[in-house]
């Protein structure tokens, strides 16, 4: 799957279904993905090769067959911007890879945890390599605008903070206000001017 997904950004309060969405709509759907899972929340949720060092991750990606690559990097020492920079550079060495990042605000924030240069390069030039990005965060306002502004698809789960709703309205339009009323596991998906409502399978 080449650049069909582009950049997808998922946000919502904790426990509203972000991880379930990630598992059901991304991890079990994409044949070629590299997951940066510094919270170790996605391990065991989908068939993936789990690695704990960067060298192993690079090897695992490069040794994967052409059409199939499923690697989940769980850094043993937790999140680090330097390591995230190297992981963001991996899609420049292979083609057609989806980089999945959970809790991206801890790695590519606005005030603190500024995004590494490689991640910015991936956002802007990744399409030349068929690279896509799927990123998750609780608050959209905490994530670097470089990512949210380039997102082709924004998935919003329940939000209650007025400042977050205001920010999302500036990003996606007026219908972002409906996020206040969303029940758990329901989401609004914004793709350009098209807005759709969806629900994640609770059994996932």
């Amino acid at each position, binding site marked *: 799957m080449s650049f069909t997904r582009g950049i997808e950004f998922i946000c919502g309060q904790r426990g509203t279904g972000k991880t379930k969405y990630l598992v059901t709509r991304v991890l079990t759907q994409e044949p070629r993905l590299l997951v940066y899972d510094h919270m170790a929340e996605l*391990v065991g949720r989908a*068939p993936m090769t789990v690695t704990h060092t*960067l060298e192993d991750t690079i090897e695992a990606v490069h040794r994967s067959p052409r059409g199939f690559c499923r690697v989940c990097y769980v850094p043993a020492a937790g999140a680090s911007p*330097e*390591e995230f920079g190297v992981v963001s*550079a991996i899609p420049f060495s292979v083609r057609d890879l989806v980089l999945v990042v959970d809790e991206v605000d801890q790695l590519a924030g606005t005030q603190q945890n500024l995004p590494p240069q490689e991640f910015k390069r991936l956002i802007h030039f990744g399409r030349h390599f068929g690279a896509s990005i799927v990123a998750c965060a609780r608050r959209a306002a905490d994530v670097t605008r470089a990512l949210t502004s380039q997102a082709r698809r924004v998935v919003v789960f329940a939000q209650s903070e007025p400042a977050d709703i205001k920010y999302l309205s500036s990003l996606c339009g007026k219908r972002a206000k409906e996020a206040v009323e969303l029940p758990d596991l329901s989401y609004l998906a914004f793709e350009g001017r098209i807005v759709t409502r969806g629900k994640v399978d609770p059994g996932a």
Partner: protein
Amino acid sequence: MSPRAKERSAATPGGPPPGLVETRDTLRTRAGAARAAASARGGKPGAKTDADVGLPGRGPGRPTAASQITEFPIEALAEAHYHVWGLITKALRSRWRITKPAADEMAKYADLVLRQYLGPALGDNAPLALYCLTQVTAISACFALREGPAPKPDTAPGAAPPAPQPARTQAGAPAPLPYERGPLESELRHIPPS
């Protein structure tokens, strides 16, 4: 021709822009530098255990197997799948008329196949292990349908009545398999990660 011009000429039209391409070697070099930078900032490499990162099979307090790649055994999976489904096909062909010792033998063989080909996956790739278990369960269900050999009609006085045959559809095919927990499933749960 300058190196830059060479790089530019090597780039295919419409391909990735020159200067962005990474290689495995450059990535590995950068990985070493990144680790050094992270540890200089006070990172704690190797501080987590497998239990911390949600991996099954290892107790708390034991350092995680950080340097081990758990290969996604695609070829092994395909091969095991082939073997396992070969067994099921065999059972189907014989229309469940397999003896108990033969069933046990096949179960042992299936166990061997799973241990040999998918054993390494049971440690870190729990979904694969579950996949194995479903396969084994399917076989076990096959075995559970047939406990013993189909006895020949015995006309001798006092002979036991013939064992009941599995239900069949009108077309003569066996009825759908009931889902049963096979004996191998509980056994497989205790296979230590290799």
